């Protein structure tokens, strides 16, 4: 349950056109059942592309992805994706947003509302069931989005910088909230972030992608018991490690960008 295996996946955007971009190159990776994996890398390294492919919204140009041993050919009920941007439907109440997936499956109104209410309670939004998204705070909206993902019983939660748009306090709150949800649930989480602290605080294992094209640079297990303390020698050690590895990649990304811009102006 919830095991994802990626074999040599490569993604080329606009293949065969002059604007062809190699986004991701030969990434092979196994995410174990119940594992919390964080993915970090410089911006534009293909983190989001990687997640879109795991979700089945995009197909790899080459290579294969399997989830629970089955090839990923499109979105599936075993995987759910949570976005950074607000994604609740503004015309539906929180309850109906959470129940939306069940509605698509044709579950009767009364039953899907009952089931959705259970998940709203789990994320602490029961009193807000009949509020609409614009009446909820950013953190509440993301919690409802998580409830919506949980409601279909996905084994794998794919999260694309879900807390990046939130303020610092809310972000901390949401991080421990996510750990509460995940611990003991047996769910697999793949969590994309550009925040080193967030990755070290949350994950069992952190993988680093290189600047474009994204390749697997390193995979580091975080051997710290939970709850983790952000101010501790161990935390500092991991933070230092990732800062150093990332800095080199970010510099490379910048240089590449400058080079590309220079070439662009030359051509013009």
């Amino acid at each position, binding site marked *: 349950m919830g095991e994802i295996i990626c074999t040599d996946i490569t993604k080329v955007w606009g293949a065969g056109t002059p604007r062809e971009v190699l986004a991701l190159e030969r990434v092979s990776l196994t995410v174990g059942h119940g594992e919390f994996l964080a993915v970090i890398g410089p911006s534009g390294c293909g983190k989001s592309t990687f997640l879109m492919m795991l979700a089945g919204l995009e197909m790899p140009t080459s290579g294969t992805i399997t989830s629970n041993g089955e090839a990923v050919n499109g*979105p599936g009920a075993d*995987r759910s*994706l949570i976005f950074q941007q607000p994604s609740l*439907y*503004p015309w539906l109440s929180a309850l109906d947003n959470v129940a939306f*997936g069940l509605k*698509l499956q044709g579950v009767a109104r009364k039953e899907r509302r009952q089931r959705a209410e259970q998940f709203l309670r789990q994320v602490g939004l029961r009193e807000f069931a009949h509020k609409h998204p614009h009446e909820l705070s950013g953190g509440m909206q993301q919690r409802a989005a998580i409830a*919506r993902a949980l409601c279909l019983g996905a084994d794998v939660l794919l999260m694309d910088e879900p807390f990046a748009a939130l303020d610092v306090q809310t972000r901390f709150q949401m991080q421990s909230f996510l750990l509460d949800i995940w611990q003991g649930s047996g769910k697999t989480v793949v969590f994309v972030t550009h925040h080193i602290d967030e990755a070290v605080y949350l994950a069992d294992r952190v993988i680093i992608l290189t600047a474009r094209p994204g390749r697997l640079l390193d995979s580091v297990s975080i051997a710290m018991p939970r709850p983790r303390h952000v101010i501790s020698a161990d935390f500092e050690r991991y933070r230092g490690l990732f800062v150093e590895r990332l800095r080199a990649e970010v510099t490379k990304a910048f240089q590449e960008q400058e080079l590309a811009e220079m070439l662009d102006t030359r051509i013009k």
Partner: protein
Amino acid sequence: MRGRQIGSWIGRREDDPKSVEEMPEAEEGLGYRGWIKRLIPLGLLIGVVVGVGWWVLSLGIVVAIWELAVALQFVNPVILPPPHLFIAEIRNQAQFLMPQVGATAVSGNFIVLTVIWMSLQRVLLGLALAFVSAVTLGSLAFYFEIFGKLTLPTITLLAPIASVAWIPLAIVAFGVGDRAAIFVVFISVVFTLTLGTVNNMHNVDQVYINTARVLGASRRQVIQHVIFPAVLPQLFVIMRINLFGAWMGVLAAEMVGVRSGLGAIVVVGRQMMNMNLTFLGMALIGLVGYLLDASFGLVQRRVLWWKSTAQL
């Protein structure tokens, strides 16, 4: 004492619900005055009275200048009859019983309302037909790419034809009557609305679509449950923008050939050199047009609130 209390009230924000509850009398519910205050929030009432006051004042200035100009014999009341004269025309029911205005078959007491209703139902029916057709056509053009490619260029060319330009065709095709007027309203909105439907459907936030796909939605479900509700407020705005065009279209049709309804009153007034009637028609056209727009705005805020007007 009481004056000071009311004075302190005016300073408060009317949309602040606390200010209503803070009133000691409203809390206690003592006597009938307390009850009245509880039922009608005073702050809101003052806001409404002040708002209406400006309207009355603004209109009053125009009416006063007009009446004064007539009283001082600067203008000829036969050509520019002042408001008190043409409003009095409402009582002149016999005028409206003329077959030209098309209200012969109805009982005498509510002729003005009947005439208003004639024009109004043509607009509403035309808009409803246009909305249903445009959304259907637009959705099909969005769903079946080939169908869109085949139809949209023609629709793009038809959209800028002014509603008035369709009137001769409408009268030839449908004869003189309701159907011609409804057709003019329909045709003045349907093409623009179809194009708006397709454009807005293409611009729906990708995150909304991806969310539905991740939750297992088919393409049809994405359109039905995500894209359609997402574009609905914008479609309504397009309708509202084109409302005055449609209103103009139906009145012009009524003046030229259809010969019943508010547009016909204006023309009959001119033909009989009874400018009282013409001005009454004009005043009613303005008033009804305004109320039509205002009621659309109300629906927009109450029913389609998920896109605030600021976002549109």
